[in-house]
């Protein structure tokens, strides 16, 4: 069954290597067995090697295999790319970072010999839990992966047959399993936050439940109390049924850190037989809680979409919020241009009765600034993408992200300037900020606050000296924080210059020896380093210190963009309201609803900083070539 997406089993482990939840789907497993049987019957080549495929492990077998892999691969996720410690047959031998997310386990089963590879297991680390989901693939895919990770050559070339890429392209079930594990991850950590929609009057508007329950106090799914049954003979009028209560898992409820029941009922509804049908937990939980009554009538002429099990009733309105996050790398150097990018999204909440279509023109989309446009599945995107520059959608209930985009800044960076830090001695640094805020920003744009932080993760800050031209300064153990604009005193319609010269003093430098250097550690023999040319090095304290400090830097996970600790920088955080920086805009007057209905439209914008970094102009900095799209 290629093209569809089923899951054989799900396991959730906690950080003590104990399985706290597991669920197996016998129907999918049956399909796997049938597929294996026919594969074994049909395969001529390698019949010897692949006659048996592992059946699902028990909890204890899985844990053992998981622990063994972690030992072999250095960490829960593994090396990801081939390093000297990688062994043939392990995931990192494949030399692809995605093997940190799609892993294989070798089950320790004597009777099955070498064919004990369990792949692909989707690994999601969420909080203290590891979620493992095993999607159904065809036996030939498993074989292909086994070949990939056992080939003895120097590593696959790109663009040749039988690469991991073509496997992944062939297997939507892996993508589906990622979606499933993300949904489950959100549930077990309680991260079920709906996209934020801001209204000018109230700070934010709640989620789907609000639209169902009105505003009777249930604010969001995450804070919802468990459906613990009412005490004996309370609310149920039918006295016959009041003999007992459904106290779920009574004896252990208190000690369990994981809401197994919520999880179980989510899985039952979203993927009853292991094939996901709907992963929207807000829909599933509201159906669980509210159920349906005979009075919930379906629309007369249309089919009600599965993603909208309830129809809205009440006062109608439309809310839009544009959220933008600004990432910037400010270098203030001739050879490296500053880079700034905005990732934005339009959140929406449509409180409209029936099943109407909403459409509005995308103002700002016609510029070259917007790079990416992706839409909610409810948006009707024509075959060739959006060429009419208007978007039409049939809104679901509750808050949802209508559209996402990447853009470059239309106005210019909100904070411009430079940061210089120079070490005058081993324990003392002199720094200088010269910043210009909101240059060229016109009236509706308001900077709500702005803070600059200088982190020193590897040094302990003892004291600082110096006064900024504006704002206040405070220090923590490992950082200096400069609040330029305090929240509550927003900056509107004018530009401000802020300078801050000063010195910072650190506790004496201590060499931090790493317990183990992961990839290439221990090879170097540095015994003779600073004797012959040591005197030259001492000329420049800065360089000397740099060298010293970079020697014992830890290696970062592949999920990080670079080794943050290797650089000195200042990070800016701010919030701007009033308009989007990309120029994205929704004109409330041009929003139309079909069938026509009178509904007020509210529109707001929020811009916040993401990684907004001022690199030390006098130090090293990471950079990248500019992509030309």
């Amino acid at each position, binding site marked *: 069954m290629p*093209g*569809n997406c089923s899951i054989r089993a799900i396991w959730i482990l906690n950080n003590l290597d104990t399985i706290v939840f*597991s669920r197996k789907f*016998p129907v999918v497993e049956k399909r796997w067995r049938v597929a294996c049987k026919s594969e074994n019957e049909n395969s001529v080549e390698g019949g010897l090697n692949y006659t048996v495929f592992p059946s699902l492990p028990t909890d*204890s077998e899985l844990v053992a295999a998981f622990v063994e892999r972690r030992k072999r691969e250095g960490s829960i996720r593994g090396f*990801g*790319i*081939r390093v000297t410690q990688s062994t043939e047959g392990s995931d990192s031998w494949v*030399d692809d*970072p995605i093997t940190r997310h799609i892993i294989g386990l070798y089950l320790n089963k004597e009777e099955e010999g070498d064919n004990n590879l369990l792949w692909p297991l989707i690994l999601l680390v969420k909080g203290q839990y590891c979620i493992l989901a095993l999607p159904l693939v065809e036996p030939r895919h498993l074989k292909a992966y086994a070949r990939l990770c056992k080939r003895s050559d*120097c590593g*696959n*070339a*790109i*663009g*040749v047959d039988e*690469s991991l890429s073509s496997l992944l*392209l062939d297997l939507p079930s892996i993508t589906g399993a*990622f*979606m499933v594990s993300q949904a489950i991850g959100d549930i077990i950590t309680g991260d079920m936050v709906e996209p934020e929609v801001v209204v000018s009057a109230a700070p934010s508007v709640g989620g789907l439940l609000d639209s169902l329950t009105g505003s009777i106090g249930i604010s969001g799914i995450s804070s919802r109390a468990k459906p613990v049954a009412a005490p004996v003979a309370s609310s149920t009028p039918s006295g016959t049924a009041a003999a*007992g209560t*459904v106290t*779920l*898992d009574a004896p252990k409820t208190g000690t369990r850190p994981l809401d197994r029941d919520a999880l*179980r009922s989510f899985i039952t*509804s979203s993927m009853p037989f292991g*094939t996901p*049908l709907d992963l929207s937990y807000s829909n599933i939980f509201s159906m669980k809680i509210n*159920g*349906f009554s*005979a009075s919930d*009538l379906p*629309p*007369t002429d249309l089919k009600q979409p*599965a*993603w909208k099990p309830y129809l809205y009733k009440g006062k109608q309105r439309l809310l839009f919020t544009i959220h933008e996050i600004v*990432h910037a790398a400010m270098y203030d150097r001739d050879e490296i241009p500053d880079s700034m990018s905005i*990732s934005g999204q339009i959140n929406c909440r449509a409180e409209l009765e029936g099943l109407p279509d909403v459409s509005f023109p995308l103002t700002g989309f016609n510029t070259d600034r917007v*790079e*990416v446009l992706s839409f909610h*599945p409810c948006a009707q*995107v*024509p075959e060739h*993408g959006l060429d009419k520059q208007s978007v039409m959608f049939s809104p679901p209930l509750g808050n949802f992200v209508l559209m996402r985009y990447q853009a470059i800044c239309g106005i210019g960076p909100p904070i411009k300037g430079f940061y210089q830090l120079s070490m005058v001695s081993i324990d003392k640094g002199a720094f200088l900020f010269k910043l210009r805020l909101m240059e060229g920003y016109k009236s509706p744009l308001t900077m709500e606050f702005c803070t600059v932080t200088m982190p020193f993760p590897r040094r302990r800050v003892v004291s600082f000296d110096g006064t900024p031209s504006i704002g206040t300064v405070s220090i923590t153990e490992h950082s200096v924080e400069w609040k330029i604009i305090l929240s509550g005193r927003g900056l509107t319609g004018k530009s401000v210059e802020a300078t801050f010269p000063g010195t910072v003093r650190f506790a004496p430098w201590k060499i931090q020896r790493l317990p183990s250097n*992961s990839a*290439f*550690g221990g*090879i170097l023999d540095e015994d*003779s380093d600073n004797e*012959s040319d040591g005197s030259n090095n001492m000329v420049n304290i800065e360089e000397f210190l740099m060298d010293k400090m970079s020697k014992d830097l830890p290696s*970062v*996970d592949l999920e*990080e*963009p*670079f080794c943050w600790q*290797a650089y000195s920088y200042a990070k800016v955080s701010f919030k701007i309201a009033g308009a989007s920086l990309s120029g994205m805009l929704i004109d409330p007057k041009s929003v139309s609803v079909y069938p026509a209905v009178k509904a007020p439209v509210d529109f707001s914008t929020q811009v916040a900083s993401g990684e907004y970094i001022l690199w030390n102009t006098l130090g090293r900095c*990471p950079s*990248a*070539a500019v*992509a030309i799209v």
Partner: protein
Amino acid sequence: MTDKPHPQPPPPLKPLSPQDWELLIDDFQYGGVRRQKWTSALAIFPFIVDQALSSLLKRDFPLKLSLILFLEEFSNTLLGSADPDCQPHENSLHRLIETVRVVLQTPIDGVHVTFALREQMMVSVTSIVISLDTGLGQVHMRWVESLVELLLTVINRPNYGSDRQARAVACECLRELELAYPCLLSDIAGHLWSLCQNERTHASQSYILLFTSVIHNIVAQKMNVSVLNTSVPLVPFIVPQILLGDSNSGKEGSGGLNYKELRRAMAFLLEWPQVLTPCAMVEFLAMIMPLAVALDLQASMLKVQFFGMIYSYDPMLCHVVLTMYSKFLDAFDGQEGEIARRLILVSRETQHFLVFRLLALHWLLGFCELVLRRDAGKMKPIVETCLHIYPSVFDPLALKALNLDLLAFCSICVSESRLGEDAGNAKEMVMLFKDGLVSVSAFKWLPVWSSETAVAFRTFHRFLIGASSHSDFDPSTTRSIMDSTIFRTLQGMLVDVMLECHRLVPVMVAFTDRLLGCQKHIWLGERLLQTFDEHLLLKVKMGYKLVSYFPIFDRIAENDTIPPRGLLELLGKFMVFLVDKHGPDTGLKSWSHGSKVLAICRTLLMHHNSSRLFLRLSQLLAYTCLYFPDLEIRDNARIYLRMLICVPGKKLRDILNHGEQLLGILPSSHSSSFFSVQSPRSSHNVKKSRNISSYVYLERVIPLLVKQSWSLSLPSLGVGSNKPDYLEGIRDSEPVVEEREIDSSSTIQIIPETARIDQPHEPLRVMDSKISEILGTLRRHFSCIPDFRHMTGLKVRISCSLRFESEPFNRIWGDGTPVSGLDEVDALPALYATVLKFSSSAPYGSIPSYHIPFLLGEPSRNKDISGQQVSLEIVPLENGSEEDDRFRAPVIIELEPHEPTPGMVHIFIETNTENGQIIHGQLRSITVGIEDMFLKAIVPSDIEEDAIPEYYSDLFSALWEACGTSCNTGRETFPLEGGKGIAAISGTQSVKLLEITALSLVRAIERYLAPFVVSVIGEPLVTLVKDGEIIRDIIWKDVASDSSLDVTSTVTNFDRGPLQLTYTGDVGERESLASISRRNLGCFLVLIFLPPRFHLLFQMEVSDLSTLVRIRTDHWPCLAYIDDYLEALFLA
């Protein structure tokens, strides 16, 4: 979750409490021992199922949902018995379906019967029914039938208000059943369609999916059924005949598809995709796509309707479009650029989880492969789209790595497809590479273990091997890669990087190792090393930091495609530098650096022809031995120099290859790394060593007379605490005082014999002079016998020879290279430093191992006979003795028997082949016979040479006397050498008649027993023997001349004993003996000493046609072997 034992399961007949259920479920999930605890008693399964089902129907049972799920997940264990028709299985299924029926019919009260329970029951029971089906049995279909009927009643109420979710679930159950039994619902497709049209609640998705799957199966199975026909009633449901009967009965329905109706159904289905959730859309399209193909639908229709999904931010919808592309390549023709652009943009969407951004890039790469395979020309729009997409600063490293992969792929495409003119091309590729690398350029100064370094070198690898896949067999690409600009750029860059930051040298070594370890790309690694040799060596700065480049120098030295000149020059300069800079505070440094240089020299010696190295290396070494400040380095250099000059190249390499550590090179941090590289070669191979005894032989020089060997096994033969009685004669002399003295003094204390005789417990008795004379002789004799318990005992030496066959040896241990040398002997394999170790279960003491420095293999005989290489040297060998000494090594096995007994000696060989392989193995055991124990008696040192025959003769008569049955010496004890132990004699006698002519007897004696003959008596015999001149230096006697040893008188004397009465029975024997003696030729007296302190005496009375051997010994067990021995000796 530990394996700690839980309380025993409750006895089966007691109902399980909710707590018991929880424990049971946990144990089942955990598996292993904890599950076995339950499953070991198979009989309890029906009980568990029974209990579970009745608990489900109880009003107040709290664990209903978990219990259903438990039944579902373990249905195979609990319900699936081996025999599907057996009673419990049937019963359980029946009860299961009845339970659903009850649950479905009980009104919902929101507490005990909830929607959740209903839904879960439907799902789980469906799941159980499907997964329990082992084969399509009629019986099983009955359950399916009743389940379907139940579910159909649920879904047959479209638009009904409150149970819409239950209807949706029931639809899903039916869909799973339809999936498991294709065409199960085909007869009622018409009903399903109308239900599907009617349903308008959110459950319509499930109706649509159900109907789609029915249509899908009808088309897939090519069923001729009407999907409009509603004549068959929905309920009662009857399973279609095709599913029940055998396969050919179903064929009648497959007359052909009803295209018109099916197209109508399809058109209906395509009206409603917007009501589906993304997950359902994936399901839906997976079914629709094959339908569209089968029904000849315009694929462009699908494209128009579904291609827009690629703009969704839901990854599953994007993926579905890609799947569609691969299905309908033609319809999607021309969209390649758009798809590529879209995928790139997805990868740049920072709102996505990282894994989806990674997936998008993987899809793109996989998509490119797909397009390439189909039509390389279509790559152009893709490549143009992807060409300048560089990773951005804040992209996670994982994404950067994949993005760089994409760039590498593009650069390959550009270079292969020759888009644009060549020169610009190359420039562009280099630019791509350099620009892409900016994002991880920090690898140049970050520590070597940083992730940036790993990513950067991974990218180098990708760019370097380019399009040359491992399955590729086209050598032209090899050439083109070598010549490509990117390759040259990369090489140059790697050199620069190394010059700039010597920290990266180990990483570079690992990088080249990765290429060198790959069969396909070994040449790339070699090329890199060549580049380093050409460019790096010239540019490195002389100084102490040069040492950090040594790992890469070592790799260069290992590679024999690189002329060692440059490296040797550099090392020479470095040595000069070291000598120049040497001062009081650089002692250790000079030593360490010097030894590292020598380690590289050694690597060179190991991998290059000496002629290539000779000039420069000898200069370098000579300089080092003359001027280097450190003594040890000078010494080592001298050794290398000597070896370089004296040992021929091949042998030298073998020697170096083999004994790295033995050569006394101080293991430096570098050398240890390449020691480990070579260890696999010299590791010993157990498998190969297994059959070693079939071609390596250790053989006795003199074969044993008694071929089949056996040895008398007596309990506790050892000299342990409980000594057997025949050994009792040897014991420590009692006086404690004396012993203490001996212990305390380091010098050997000599105790006067007289003193010893006067020991307190020494029995006092009257002795006649003859007896005292005998005693004197014996005392003297025994005092010469070493006491093996306190000193080295007497040794028995067995000569053997070791040889091995060349041909089978080469087959197993050879390195596969055909030997083409002109010199036959040089081509033969050899064993080096062979050590033979011996062990035996017989009491032979510890047997010293034997060492053979060198042994050449025997040339195979076939080869010589076939005449292929009849060298002049071989021919005479053939004619002469086969046993050429060159191919045999003499081996002496030295035993120190604690008891004269035959036995086996096991042989273990440990040796080395020429190429350094270690052979361990066991050879065939050597048999030790009783004759190996035969030694000449020890002659006291004060006996003169010419008095020896006399001494032996005296000794013989004394022992003969002492071993007699009734002898006065029986209670005497005799101290052994060293005086610590004393021995007593307890004699035994035996007789053997040999039917053999006198002549052959004499021959045999001359051949085998000559050394042990002490006397020949009787004139005829003396004349017979004396002429042979083999038996010499003994006492020759006429019968008359010596009365005391007169044969007849001796016989009578000994038979009777001095104080014995003559039995009448004895007379006959004596007379017959006498009659033989009448034709007597004479008599041999043979004295054999058996280590450690025993004796074997023969008196052979030789007649013309037979010989009577009288045997006396003080070690009776040996008689067991003597019989066989004598027979083999004389009668064989």
